[in-house]
């Protein structure tokens, strides 16, 4: 314990060097805007800025990139809330309730909740990182394919009932998402699937952002156009303002969301440390569980503050968590840490179990800078809230074309393929029609995120276990996660039976 504290103190000495401190502040600010640009996200931001980092020593370089990664987690919420377009895949869950809040004229409340929750998630996760890194690295190491699949099933289970009342429509939506996620290269056989007469654009699969920006960006815009038309061109969006009184009221209301934030922080961190999962499943799961444990689950999707706080706490916590497998196992916990790993090669550092002892300066400098980055990110973010609110006061006729352009760029940026832009527009129109017909869209997005993670894990497990599902129940971690997933999945059914049984005696009395 004392040793950790002295190492951390050394790390703070590194983080507070003027150059590093400056890099943290610049990185957080840059990250905020990179995250807020739809489709740009932390992956592309870090990849673009990576070559710049050889100008500074390795520790400064990783601090800079980590600050961008971190800032982008804060920034991702901004366009999710204001424009209804997830700025990054990690911020999708934030749109579910953040956008409705903004539409009710309470964008300031949603933005404050996102910033504070991010801070809480970030802080809790860095504390966990500081004190429990080695034992957790061991968990990440023994986590194999069966455990991964069990975790993904758990994520799906948390989403049962998320889509509303019509269970069939929810299942339909999940299936659409799963089919879309199956497009592209089959990881086990290596053969291309569903590429429609060898259209090369399908070879790389359907990027999750293409669906998310299509449905939430373009679809949402079409929806807003219709609503505005009905309302005679007036929208509630512009009602948000920032005053001291409102901010205090917002913060007070946030106190009530402490449970969602704490849950999101721990869950996000643990999902984040698992290789290949990353912040996106973490934030989606946090949203699902926040709804399950909430006293007012009906408010979710209509503008529940818990629905913003939980995923935002989780995605920041997960971004810290995913640094752990990167540093100790040399494998990325998220796409962004994959790029950071590339950076470590350029700087001549060998990630692996020995990094903590051989390059203690580097590791502890990074950890300490996460504390610092967290502080600056929340300050910068809160300072910018009035500016972001001002954007919403723009007339929709000006805002809409800007959003549309941002959507197109966002669809193009990850793969640099126009094919994806066309696909996105089609998804936008289909998404709008589905919404008109009252199909829930969130399950489709969840499926396209988790599908590509769950499928290889399932098939690898079955290969190892000779096609028997026993493999999921014969390993301790996997068995316990699997049981939790099954219980969660059938919980709504039990609830239904329980409610019916409770109703019957009452009916008899009456």
């Amino acid at each position: 314990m004392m040793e950790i504290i002295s190492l951390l103190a050394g790390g703070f000495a590194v983080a507070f060097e003027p150059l590093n401190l400056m890099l943290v502040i610049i990185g957080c600010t840059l990250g905020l805007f990179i995250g807020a640009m739809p489709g740009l996200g932390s992956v592309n931001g870090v990849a673009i800025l990576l070559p710049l980092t050889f100008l500074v020593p390795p520790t400064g370089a990783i601090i800079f990139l980590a600050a961008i990664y971190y800032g982008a987690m804060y920034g991702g919420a901004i366009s999710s809330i204001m424009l209804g377009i997830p700025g990054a895949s990690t911020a999708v869950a934030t749109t579910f309730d953040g956008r409705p809040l903004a539409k009710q004229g309470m964008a300031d409340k949603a933005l404050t909740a996102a910033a504070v929750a991010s801070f809480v998630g970030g802080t809790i996760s860095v504390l966990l990182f500081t004190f429990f890194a080695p034992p957790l690295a061991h968990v990440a190491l023994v986590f194999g394919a069966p455990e991964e699949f069990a975790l993904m099933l758990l994520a799906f289970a948390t989403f049962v009932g998320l889509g509303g009342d019509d269970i069939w429509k929810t299942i339909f939506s999940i299936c659409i998402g799963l089919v879309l996620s199956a497009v592209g290269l089959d990881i086990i056989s290596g053969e291309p699937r569903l590429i429609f007469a060898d259209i090369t654009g399908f070879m790389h699969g359907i990027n999750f952002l293409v669906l998310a920006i299509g449905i939430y960006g373009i679809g949402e815009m079409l929806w807003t156009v219709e609503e505005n038309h009905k309302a005679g061109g007036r929208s509630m969006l512009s009602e948000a303002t920032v005053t001291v009184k409102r901010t205090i009221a917002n913060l007070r209301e946030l106190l009530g969301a402490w449970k969602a934030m704490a849950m999101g922080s721990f869950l996000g961190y643990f999902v984040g440390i698992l290789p290949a999962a990353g912040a996106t499943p973490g934030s989606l799961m946090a949203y699902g569980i926040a709804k399950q444990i909430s006293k007012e689950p009906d408010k979710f999707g209509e503008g529940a503050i818990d629905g913003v706080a939980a995923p935002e706490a989780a995605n920041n916590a997960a971004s810290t968590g995913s640094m752990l497998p990167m540093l100790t196992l040399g494998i990325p916990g998220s796409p962004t840490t994959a790029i950071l790993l590339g950076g470590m090669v350029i700087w001549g550092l060998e990630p692996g179990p020995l990094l903590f002892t051989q390059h203690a300066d580097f590791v502890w400098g990074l950890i300490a800078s996460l504390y610092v980055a967290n502080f600056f990110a929340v300050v910068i973010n809160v300072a910018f809230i009035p500016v972001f609110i001002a954007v919403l006061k723009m007339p929709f006729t000006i805002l809409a074309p800007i959003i549309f352009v941002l959507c197109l760029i966002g669809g193009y940026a990850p793969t640099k393929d126009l094919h994806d832009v066309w696909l996105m527009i089609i998804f936008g129109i289909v998404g709008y029609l589905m919404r008109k017909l009252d199909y829930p869209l969130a399950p489709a997005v969840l499926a396209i995120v988790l599908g590509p993670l769950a499928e290889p894990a399932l098939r690898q497990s079955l290969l190892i276990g000779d096609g028997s599902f026993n493999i999921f129940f014969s390993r301790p971690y996997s068995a316990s996660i699997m049981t939790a997933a099954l219980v969660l999945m059938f919980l709504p059914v039990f609830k239904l039976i329980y409610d019916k049984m409770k109703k019957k005696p009452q009916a008899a009395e009456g």
Partner: protein
Amino acid sequence: MGITKRAILGLTCAFGMSAALAGSALADAHGGWKPKKPVEFVVMAGKGGGADKAVRLMQAIIAEDKLAPVPITPVNKPGGSGAEALVYMKGKNGDNHTIMFTLNSFYTTPLRQKALGVDITTFTPVMRMAEDTFCLWVNSDRKDINSVDDFVKEAKAAGNKWIMAGTGKNSEDNLLTDFLNTAYGLDMKYVPYKGGGKVAKELAGNNANSTVNNPSEQLGFYEAGKTKPLACFTPERISLFKDAPTFKELGKDFVYFMQRTVVGAPGMNGDAAKYYNELFTKVFNSEKWQTYRKKKALVGPALAGDALMDYWKKERDIHKKMLIDMGAIKG
């Protein structure tokens, strides 16, 4: 429109413009062909893999030493075991601003998927930057396995319960697993994972019994004493693992490398090809690249021009035979 709104619009625009400006550095005018716009460096694999890391390192070397007048921008096209990248390059016929970093899927993917219509001999050879090596690895917890003989004994006893993790079906790892199965009469089960880093971790976490990783992928775990190499598929012992014999020493004449090569689009202008050849000669000779080669146990001299093309043809024939032997394609 208020000042704040303008500020935001301005910020958004400034962001876009600065990105655009960064891409339009001017070419200087003296001597020969020079790229006029940013050069796309296609990676045949996903972000964060071995190939991707090498490309980003080369990008950094070129930028740091100011070897090129324009930025080199990596673009990942991992789909279909490189099929996506190959088809993309084929479509760039005659383009002087697109280069690609290839692996052995450069041979195997066109062989397996004739429908792609990719003929690798039409591509422009630029430079082979290295050859990566392969070793047979087991977890250090297996105190009972210290040689290939021990390995064969244990794997034989386990039958098809012995799990060999690798990087995808019909990949380099799959070819090597098939070789071991045939050479030693084993029945190991091959389970494909996404990426060599993941494979290495599965072994260190005891979720697989053995792997045939590149040294660079296992290095972190090896140095921490979590995994150990039993033997390597190289002509001579790798200096990093002096105790691990080669399969050649053990009487199995099997040597296998993975190329790490820069290739240009088909039909590239001769002057442009010369330019890239000179550029990557400088990268190859840079201290950073040489250090990287040493640290990652990369071998093989630089190879360019006709010599590289001959190497491709030879390797393609070898891979064709291996794929036929394992039943992945028909003869």
